[in-house]
């Protein structure tokens, strides 16, 4: 208890802190040739057929790969032949491709991957993409044949499917395989380290068959909070971050940050869960679609980084402009609700058979834009007499099938079949199948049009059916579309080689050509 001793300890502690402080100044000198990406969430696993992550593009490659224009181009496939009846495809693979563990990538691996997707035991979310596959046959080590049940144009799109190494699953169940946390692919980067709760490190794969990566390491730092992502981008702790629209103005002021405002096919909307009988009457869904002030949302919440949405294919070539766009119309909404039997009472809310017009919009709490949209929309619904609550929950606490309505986000820049069939076809209900039709939306006309669109080989015919699909979907809405959201990325200004293309959901695919990126200062 000697005071001098205590003082001594105190001083030494202060020194320690001082040393730490000095160390700080020394640190930036050694700039690593690595890229730190602020990832919005941590992954449950890295198996690309069980879960979609934005690491897939780095770790894995498929037979085909989307280019700058989101067109599939041959990658692992060297060439292919198509039979005249458009049912049989013969693929020839490149022979120089090796997985990260050195094993060669052969036809066996491709067949194994597609079979795994189709295997019910694995419950792959990609299964619907390959339902038309009749059979797979190995011809040679680097050659195989794929037979379709019916002609299916988007098959080349689907074959961008990441290829898994068959030998990594010998005698193990895919769902519980060690592979899921230590993946082996044939992409430009290989797995290095996964520091759970913290970060995932990938390192450049020296035997990559394409452009050799220039950046030695890509690190995915898991930062669920958008605020923290922006903050760390500002302070230089991360190099790339997807920004919330409101953050852009402030980060633009930082000299070292370059802003990429990239068009996406990524829309937000309210999913009506048809399990809730409130939505059985189409007029109710239409009313709630009318009562959204999209212009204000784009202006106030998205700060102009986006546009009003009314169709899932708005960013697609098959885009139909002549459908109902549900521009803001409270009167119309009120009229529809009156017709549907929901009458306004003295308290300002509508009732039908003593049931109050009330539901909850569930939204993931970590996504500020969605929360804001939900709050704004819910508040706006008061004007049509609906008592709408917002439940902002953690992603993993959400079971979309159990919500009344969900603030959904989807979108795909690829083939029109992509992210339409799996979302709106009644066979894809997530309750009965492994699809993404979370609201159990069911419309025979939509089903027929989607099937026609996917099976038709004629471009014109496909366009016609997707145009009709959009119209039918607008009349019998599964979602109340709100807005397309631009992906606004903040990137360290010294990175070169970023190629923009229309991105998918949540700006996914931004890293699609990361092997071509490089630091111009290291």
């Amino acid at each position, binding site marked *: 208890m000697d005071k001098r001793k205590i003082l001594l300890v105190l001083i030494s502690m202060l020194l320690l802190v001082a040393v730490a402080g000095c160390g700080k100044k020394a640190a930036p000198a050694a700039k690593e040739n690595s890229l730190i990406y602020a990832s919005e969430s941590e992954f449950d696993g890295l198996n690309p057929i069980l879960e979609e992550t934005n690491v897939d593009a780095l770790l894995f490659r498929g037979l085909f790969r989307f280019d700058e224009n989101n067109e599939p181009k041959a990658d692992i496939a060297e060439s292919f032949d198509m039979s005249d009846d458009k049912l049989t495809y013969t693929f020839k693979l490149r022979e120089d491709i090796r997985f990260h563990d050195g094993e060669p990538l052969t036809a066996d691996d491709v067949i194994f991957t597609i079979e795994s997707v189709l295997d019910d035991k694995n419950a792959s979310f990609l299964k619907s993409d390959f339902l038309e596959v009749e059979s797979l046959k190995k011809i040679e080590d680097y050659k195989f044949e794929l037979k379709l049940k019916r002609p299916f144009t988007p098959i080349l799109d689907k074959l961008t499917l990441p290829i898994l190494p068959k030998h990594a699953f010998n005698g193990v169940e895919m769902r519980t395989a060690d592979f899921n946390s230590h993946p082996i692919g044939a992409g430009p980067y290989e797995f290095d380290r996964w520091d759970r709760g913290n970060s995932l490190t990938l390192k450049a794969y020296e035997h990559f068959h394409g452009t050799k990566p220039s950046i030695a390491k890509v690190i995915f730092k898991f930062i669920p909070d958008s605020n923290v992502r922006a903050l760390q981008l500002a*302070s230089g702790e991360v190099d790339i971050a997807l920004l919330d629209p409101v953050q852009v103005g402030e980060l633009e002021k930082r000299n070292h940050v370059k802003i990429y405002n990239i068009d996406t096919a990524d829309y937000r909307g309210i999913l009506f869960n048809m399990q809730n009988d409130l939505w059985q009457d189409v007029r109710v869904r239409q009313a709630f679609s009318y009562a959204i002030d999209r212009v204000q949302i784009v202006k106030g919440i998205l700060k102009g980084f986006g546009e009003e949405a009314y169709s899932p294919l708005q960013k697609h070539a098959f885009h139909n402009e002549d459908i109902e766009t549900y521009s803001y119309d409270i009167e119309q909404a009120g009229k529809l609700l009156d017709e549907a039997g929901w009458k306004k009472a003295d308290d300002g809310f509508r009732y039908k058979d003593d049931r109050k017009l009330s539901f909850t919009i569930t939204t993931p709490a970590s996504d500020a834009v969605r929360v804001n949209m939900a709050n704004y929309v819910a508040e706006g619904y008061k004007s049509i007499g609906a008592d709408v609550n917002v439940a902002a929950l953690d992603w993993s606490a959400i079971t979309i099938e159990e919500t009344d309505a969900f603030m959904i986000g989807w979108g795909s820049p690829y083939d029109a079949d992509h992210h339409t069939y799996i979302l709106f076809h009644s066979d894809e209900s997530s309750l009965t199948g492994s699809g993404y039709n979370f609201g159990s939306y069911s419309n025979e006309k939509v089903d027929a049009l989607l099937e026609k669109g996917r099976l038709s080989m004629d471009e014109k015919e496909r366009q016609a059916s997707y145009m009709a699909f959009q119209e039918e979907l607008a009349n019998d809405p599964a979602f109340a579309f709100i807005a397309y959201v631009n992906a606004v990325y903040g990137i360290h200004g010294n990175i070169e080689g970023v190629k923009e293309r229309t991105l998918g959901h949540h700006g996914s695919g931004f890293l699609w050509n990361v092997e071509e990126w490089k630091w111009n200062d290291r």
Partner: protein
Amino acid sequence: MTVKWIGKRMMLGALVLFIVSFLSFFIMHASPGSSATAYYGGNAQTLTTAEKERISEAFALDRPLIVQYGAWLKQTVQGNLGVSAKEGRPVASILGERLPNTLLLFGVSMFFIIIGSIWLGMTAGMRPGSLLDRGLSAFSIASSSIPAFWLGILFIYLFAVTLGVLPSSGTGSLGGDGGFVDKIKHLIMPASVVVLTHVGLYARFLQESVKAEIGSYYVMAARANGVEEREIRRGVLRNAFIPYLNYLGVTIPSFFGGSVIVEALFAWSGLGQLLVKSVMVKDYPLLMGGIMLTGLIVVVSLFAIDVLMYTLDPKLRKGELGG
């Protein structure tokens, strides 16, 4: 220190852990229909039926709660805390990854709090009427009224965003192996927040007990008889220390609770952050494990404090206040 005494303390600690586990288990599993999802967690949709059955069987989910608790307790005693519902990895290994960080933050901030509060409290208590003496209680109340996370936000914006001298969050830098220095840099802000919001409280407590001791009868008797002031102080400190230690023990739980928030704010990947996360994702096995580990840390800290008190306080040693 007798073996009996140590044994008794340990029994008490074990009892504390038992009660904690019992209550937490029942809180978490008593709600209708939650026990199954408790184990499936966010994976409920993706799990196959076979897996669900396997889990149900392993955790006796179809049996009464008390049997489930029994199963859980049996596994836990054997060192198996189960598997995280969310990550699918053993809870023990997840906790193991987090523990060092928590102990680091807890240890370092506790260390500075103790050093700082002893120094402040002694100086202030020994000099009645001085500026420090008068200012300390106001500082103490004020500093303990600031929500730690609020101070944390201000710190982040000052030191990380505006000045850019310290990393805003996390446990260590990525990309480069900053090692020790890097760790310290990341530690400075969270630890400072914890220390600043607590040190006043402890300092003031010590100050008051020093003051109380100085005003006590035996000090008067010693002073009246011209006993050396240094000798008096030594005795005073020893006595003032016993209630201080006791206070430390009493407040360790809430102190620990406070650092949960600081961890979450600074994305300090320790137990606190893990607990918050497992609440959000309803990962009950992980949450149970986290609670038990927290309980263990608290129990061990309390034990350490008890041992210290035991050596300092002869009354305790002589069994006057045993029990």
